[in-house]
């Protein structure tokens, strides 16, 4: 029979952020207390910023290695969109700890225009707060970077996690020292303590993200305008051939014509390579 006090911690992020090492360290801490620990993880998506998650369950007796939706006590998210993706696993009374630095996946930014909107989810914070009581957001990556190494981000987040787990700082630090390379031990120790000392809600402007989106939306309305002076054009076809977005075509009278200005990325090749100075991109 599984003990009712079994704790569930779900650690999620994208490839390369150190999700698996963080979950290993948590496992080591639990083992140090004499708990049973079971872990289940998906990796292999690690390259190219794919989804990585790790279920950690610990208690006096643990049977299943996976967490059921709606039962996780803590969600430790290395990335805001991943927090949203896994939020249904968390109890309404649980805790979510989120690193606020985004990793925008390639599939969400296929529009190559400079001011293009990404399809990255918006309003993540509100969505999380509406489902879960305790949402703790902070910029762990900048904190790690300021300490001297961006890769310490996972240790910083473990520091924040340590505030909601029952283990003492000494137990954590011993486990970290055991798991990391000796030459990074001191840096990891400082990163852990930095993460542990973050107070929530920490000072940040939750509106900033929305403002950026608004600004980008305004920029998007000003679509590029390609002007072709037909009486200057001699129909050499260079602009049509060099346009990477196929915005231009040759018309019936063998002159260049704008077919779809809305896909223009303002690379300026048509304007710069027009021998007749007939093209302007505004």
């Amino acid at each position, binding site marked *: 029979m599984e003990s009712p006090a079994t704790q569930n911690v779900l650690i999620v992020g994208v490839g390369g952020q150190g999700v698996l090492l963080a979950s290993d360290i948590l496992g080591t801490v639990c083992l140090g207390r004499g708990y049973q620990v079971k872990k289940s993880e998906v990796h292999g998506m690690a390259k190219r910023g794919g989804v990585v998650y790790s279920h950690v369950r610990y208690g006096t007796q643990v049977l299943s290695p996976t967490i059921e939706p709606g039962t996780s006590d803590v969600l430790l998210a290395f990335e805001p969109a991943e927090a949203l993706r896994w939020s249904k696993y968390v109890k309404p009374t649980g805790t979510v700890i989120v690193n606020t630095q985004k990793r925008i996946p390639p599939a969400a930014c296929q529009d190559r225009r400079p001011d293009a909107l990404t399809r990255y989810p918006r309003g993540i914070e509100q969505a999380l707060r509406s489902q879960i009581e305790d949402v703790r957001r902070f910029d762990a990556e900048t904190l790690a970077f300021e300490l001297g190494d961006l890769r310490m981000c996972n240790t910083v987040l473990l520091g924040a996690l340590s505030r909601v787990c029952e283990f003492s700082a000494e137990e954590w630090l011993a486990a970290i020292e055991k798991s990391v390379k000796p030459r990074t031990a001191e840096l990891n120790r400082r990163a852990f303590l930095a993460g542990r000392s973050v107070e929530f809600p920490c000072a940040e402007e939750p509106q900033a993200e929305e403002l950026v989106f608004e600004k980008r939306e305004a920029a998007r309305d000003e679509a590029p305008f390609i002007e072709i002076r037909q009486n200057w054009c001699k129909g050499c076809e260079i602009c049509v051939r060099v346009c990477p977005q196929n915005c231009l075509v040759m018309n019936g009278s063998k002159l260049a014509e704008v077919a779809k200005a809305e896909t223009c990325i303002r690379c300026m090749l048509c304007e710069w390579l027009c*021998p007749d100075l007939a093209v302007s991109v505004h």
Partner: protein
Amino acid sequence: MLDIQKYLRLEMFPHMLCPGCGHGIVLGALLRAIHSLKLSQDEVVVVSGIGCSSRLSGYVDFDTLHTTHGRPLAFATGIKMARPELTVIVITGDGDGLSIGGNHLIHAARRNVGLTCLLLNNEIYGMTGGQAAPTTPLGKISTTGPTGPFETPFDSCRLVEAAGASFVARGITYEPATLEKLIVAAIQNPGFSFLEIISDCPEFFGRFNRMGNPADQILAQKQNVVDAKTAATLPPERLKGKMLTGILHHEPRPEYAASYQESIAQMGAQAR
């Protein structure tokens, strides 16, 4: 966004160059370079000789001089000597600059006069109907060489470097942004700056040598060149038959017009 129309004599447009002629691309790059240097239209003098490339001086709204065949550098030297504060840009072609005006070119380089010489190399005499120029590559067809010339073409950059120019570079019209930067660097160099620009002549060179339409021709340019910085890291067999682009030589030395003014001042002081 820059509107280069303010530098143009709009009543002259559309220009007389053939469809797809690379010279128009150079004209655009030159105007953007002048704009980025924030030079006023009264500070710039554009001097040109005779030929397709030399037509460009007629389209720009600076002080311009369309001179005799092969002699733009001689006229420009005169302008620079009389008014050293002006930015003097010489636009010449491969025939104008290297054969008819070859001597003027090497002596302007030797004196290191503060001119910026853009040599637009389309590897043929375009205006007179496609005769072989001193830069026509071996085996390339022209009206005077139906089987291709058997004379070795000039490497104008090495020629001018040997003659003593303080700045030598080569650009291609397919890379207009790089070309603009090279023109800026050439204008900023106080001494004689020589910039060879590989341009296309779709009407004669391209047609005789079956190079496809103007777009095919400009897209093919990239195959024949290697950037000078990249070339330094490549084995010699990879560079065979390739032209080097980028800044090939930059070694500032005293400029002729400035030295001349100094010498006048010295002699004046002695006389007093």
